């Protein structure tokens, strides 16, 4: 019984949350008038919810595409501003990504393996900008030098929660900045497994 009660409260919170989000984030559409129709138990996705969902999906897609390109270039030991990079990243994030790739290239290293994205959690949203928190695990990524010798850094944490800012730019989405939080494990963080 207690569980059922809590469930109702959660549904109420979600409905209230959506109402709040739409109230704060959108131009006011014509005010809804009281209706005798009973409130649906599973409300259909509102316009603002749909917009948010599409934005989050597109932003995450841009982030994942950028990570895939980072993996590709680090495995080749190159640092080239390809269309794949510039169409999914801009500003500080693009500078940061290129710096990482250049460091790998200039060291004469090549990566083996790829970064595992353990999960992506949705953060704030506003028109044209979303926040994501991504759990990146680089423990399976190793580095070899030109002679094939393993030069993977042994010290330091290579598991991060990456707090990303993703902006809509000319209809597309680009990761524009990141703040990294090195963590020993990703348990208990929003994007964690």
């Amino acid at each position, binding site marked *: 019984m207690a569980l059922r009660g809590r469930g109702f409260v959660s549904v109420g919170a979600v409905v209230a949350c959506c109402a709040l989000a739409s109230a704060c984030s959108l131009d006011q559409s014509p005010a809804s008038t009281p209706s005798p129709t009973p409130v649906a138990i599973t409300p259909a996705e509102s316009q603002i919810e749909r917009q948010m969902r599409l934005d989050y999906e597109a932003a995450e897609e841009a982030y994942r595409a950028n990570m895939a390109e980072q993996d590709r270039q680090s495995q080749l030991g190159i640092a080239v501003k390809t269309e794949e990079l510039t169409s999914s990243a801009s500003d500080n994030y693009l500078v940061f990504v290129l710096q990482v790739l250049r460091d790998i290239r200039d060291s004469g290293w090549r990566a083996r393996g790829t970064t595992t994205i353990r999960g992506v959690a949705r953060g704030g949203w506003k028109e044209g900008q979303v926040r994501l928190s991504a759990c990146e695990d680089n423990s399976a990524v190793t580095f070899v030098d030109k002679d094939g010798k393993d030069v993977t*850094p042994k010290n330091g944490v290579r598991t991060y929660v990456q707090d990303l800012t993703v902006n809509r730019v000319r209809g597309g989405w680009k990761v524009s*900045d990141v703040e990294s939080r090195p963590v020993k494990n990703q348990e208990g963080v929003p994007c964690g497994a």
Partner: protein
Amino acid sequence: MRRMIVLELALMICAISAVMPPSAIADSTTKRCGKTGRCYVIAKKEPRPSTPARRTGDLSPGSRADRQNAADESRVKEANKKFSAALAVYDRRLASYNRCLQTFDPSLNKTGCGSAPTPPDVPRLSSATFSGRGNQPTPTAGQAAAIAVARLQLPSIPPGIGPSPDINPWNMAAVGYPLWLWADGTTNVGPISDSVAGLSVSLEAEVSSLAFRMGDGNTVRCAGSGHPWTAAVQPGTKSPSCGYSYAKPSLPGRTYTVTAVANWAVTWTSNGQSGVINVPAVDTTELPVGELQVLVR
């Protein structure tokens, strides 16, 4: 009561997560960590403040100042139009220039365009086109980037060829001998900042492709910028990335003109937008190639 507290908490969390705090973007001390485990601090790029909206409501017809403002606006519009048109012409000429370079080979006198291609002049933002009252044409970020890239004067890439013919007694390269080819110059430029009509543009250039027209009709496309030959290379060793062996001599009496055709990929960032502009670069060198005869007794 308990439900109320839970509801209030949910609403607070919701309010925090659904509405973006405007100043929460990472600052200059933000740590950004990559897959190597190394973390970086990158200077923050301040977003360009948006241009204040024109207060057309403030215009009161009949006022001399207002008429002047309106005239200025009209001139700015006209200047913008002219500038956009000039840029469109420039874009077409640049595209034509790029097409010419695809087939340009001075040693074969094949230009593909009837004459040696020359890069077009960059349209200038002349002060005469402005009102002089601070009302300047405002190019788009892409237009500003195109101008800034054209101003960049990227260096050409001299063809590196090794071993150099100067180090053997015959002063020539030999038919059949593996030559190493590489970009004999810088392959990275920037980051560089420029300002076009008040719009800040950040540029960074990198050679993204390199090809050598060998002067005998053959073209070598390199993966990367090639490996420079050094005296430590064992004689007869082929380049790991970019090399060529001539099948026929140029001598006696002539040399092969080796042309390096590089592509600079210039990444620009301006006003929150970014893109890549490709700029070709051409340079040549003369290479005498002869045959070495070996007597076997």
